[in-house]
């Protein structure tokens, strides 16, 4: 029962998310099973909930890739500079008029920005000696802070409506999601998820350390590069469409490991489910607790994810042993 609880919770949370909102849906169940019958339901709420599911799953898988590729419990897209890179890539592309937020073009620019920033973190952390967890985290925080500052400066200086606000890039929002946006993030989630699934046995071996992974036949730089491409696609898709949503990439993989163990292939589906659950619940709360105002979703994900993570680490700490 414990093992299927997140999946059951996700189904229930999704229905609640579709039901809850500022406008009451008349004849909810009949409208739900008659596509197109109710405009609010079919044009706004359902696309928004589907986006929350995809974004949550994407960010959670991105965290799993980051932790697996770096063999580091603290690695996650925000800490490696990936999220900030995706924001910057998208902001630059939107401001130069090449693309619109949420388009496939914006997602491509977000993914390129994510890949460039993450590569920069790895390059700088690797500059003077072998890649160490400590150097990676410190350099990642610095790269992330610098790029986030640039995103803030650039988005403060322009007034274009589709450039979005600093708040959007820092805390995320699903308020502006349309059905058209779902195509792009579905593609990045599927491609990123497929790559993650393919390399998951190699990530198990990578967790033994670079030397031992190499000794048992893993091409360490190649696996790490593939993981970073998957990470960048997943984050690029999510961030360029809904902005930065904190904590999912860190919390979801850890919660999944505590429940299901460390084997990466098992974790792919479970991490995605837990990430989707966290974002769907957070989004529902963000638009319902202070109506008619909408709270930044990133604040809610932090409030939801942090206590769960602290409780799990406190209760059972033999899943990830720090060096």
């Amino acid at each position, binding site marked *: 029962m414990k093992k299927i609880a997140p999946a059951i919770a996700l189904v229930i949370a999704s229905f609640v998310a579709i039901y809850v909102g500022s406008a009451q849906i008349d004849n909810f169940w009949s409208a739900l099973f008659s596509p197109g019958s109710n405009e609010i339901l079919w044009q706004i709420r359902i696309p928004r909930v589907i986006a929350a599911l995809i974004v949550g799953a994407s960010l959670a898988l991105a965290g799993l890739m980051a932790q697996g590729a770096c063999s580091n419990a603290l690695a996650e897209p925000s800490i490696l500079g990936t999220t900030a890179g995706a924001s910057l890539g998208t902001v630059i592309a939107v401001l130069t008029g090449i693309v619109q937020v949420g388009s496939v073009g914006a997602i491509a620019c977000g993914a390129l920005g994510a890949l460039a920033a993450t590569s920069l973190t790895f390059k700088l952390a690797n500059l003077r000696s072998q890649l160490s967890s400590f150097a990676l985290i410190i350099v990642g925080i610095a790269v992330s802070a610098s790029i986030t500052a640039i995103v803030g400066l650039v988005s403060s200086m322009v007034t274009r409506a589709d450039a979005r606000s600093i708040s959007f890039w820092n805390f995320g929002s699903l308020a502006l999601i349309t059905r058209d946006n779902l195509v792009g993030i579905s593609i990045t989630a599927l491609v990123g998820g497929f790559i993650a699934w393919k390399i998951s046995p190699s990530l198990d*071996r990578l967790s033994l350390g670079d030397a031992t992974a190499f000794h048992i*036949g893993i091409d360490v730089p190649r696996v790490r590069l593939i993981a970073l491409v998957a990470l960048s696609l997943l984050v690029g898709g999510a961030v360029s469409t809904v902005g930065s949503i904190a904590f999912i990439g860190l919390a979801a993989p850890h919660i999944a490991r505590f429940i299901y163990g*460390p084997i990466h292939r098992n974790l792919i589906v479970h991490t995605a489910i837990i990430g989707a659950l966290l974002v769907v619940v957070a989004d529902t709360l963000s638009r319902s607790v202070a109506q008619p105002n909408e709270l930044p979703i990133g604040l809610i994900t932090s409030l939801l994810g942090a206590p769960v993570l602290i409780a799990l680490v406190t209760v059972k700490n*033999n899943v990830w042993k720090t060096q």
Partner: protein
Amino acid sequence: MITINEITIVVDGREIIYDYSEQIPAGSITAIVGPNGSGKSTLLAAIAGDIAPTKGTITIDGLHPILTAPAQLAQIRAVAIQNQIYTLGYTVKQIIEMAGPAEEVMRSLELTPLADRPVTTLSGGEAQRVSIAAAIAQKTPVLFLDEPLAAQDVRSRKRIIEVLKKLAEEGVSVVVVAHSSESELTWADKVIKQLL
């Protein structure tokens, strides 16, 4: 057969190994001994393909480790490093299965009772035996072990030596790096002492 031909290894400007040659035959146990900093682990890393010699060549059955793809290299040599650190809570069996079939080697190294224990909860000696078991499970013609007996009690030492002897009888070249004095290595067919 491992052939080391006039190798020199310089690390951070310091000459660790100078103009060294050696041949290690198949089906034997060779121990590389020496004090700290004598270059024994560096030699092992070079033969295993982890680092390239500054000068000279190393071949394992005619293949240059440093020029061989990781997947192919893993079919000719296995390595158990000293102080393997396990950060994620895989079970003992899952760790060994990442390298090869686990059942037989777990039995021979008396790890079967620990099969379902997370490796993060093991003692230093137990974790070292898991690392040795994983290297053996790779079933390669060459096996490198860095200080395999360092954290073991008397019973486990005896067991590991028995397993290594059996592997050598089956034709495996076993190369062991050890801190021990030569008198403690009577179970080795050859002891290499002088690297510089």
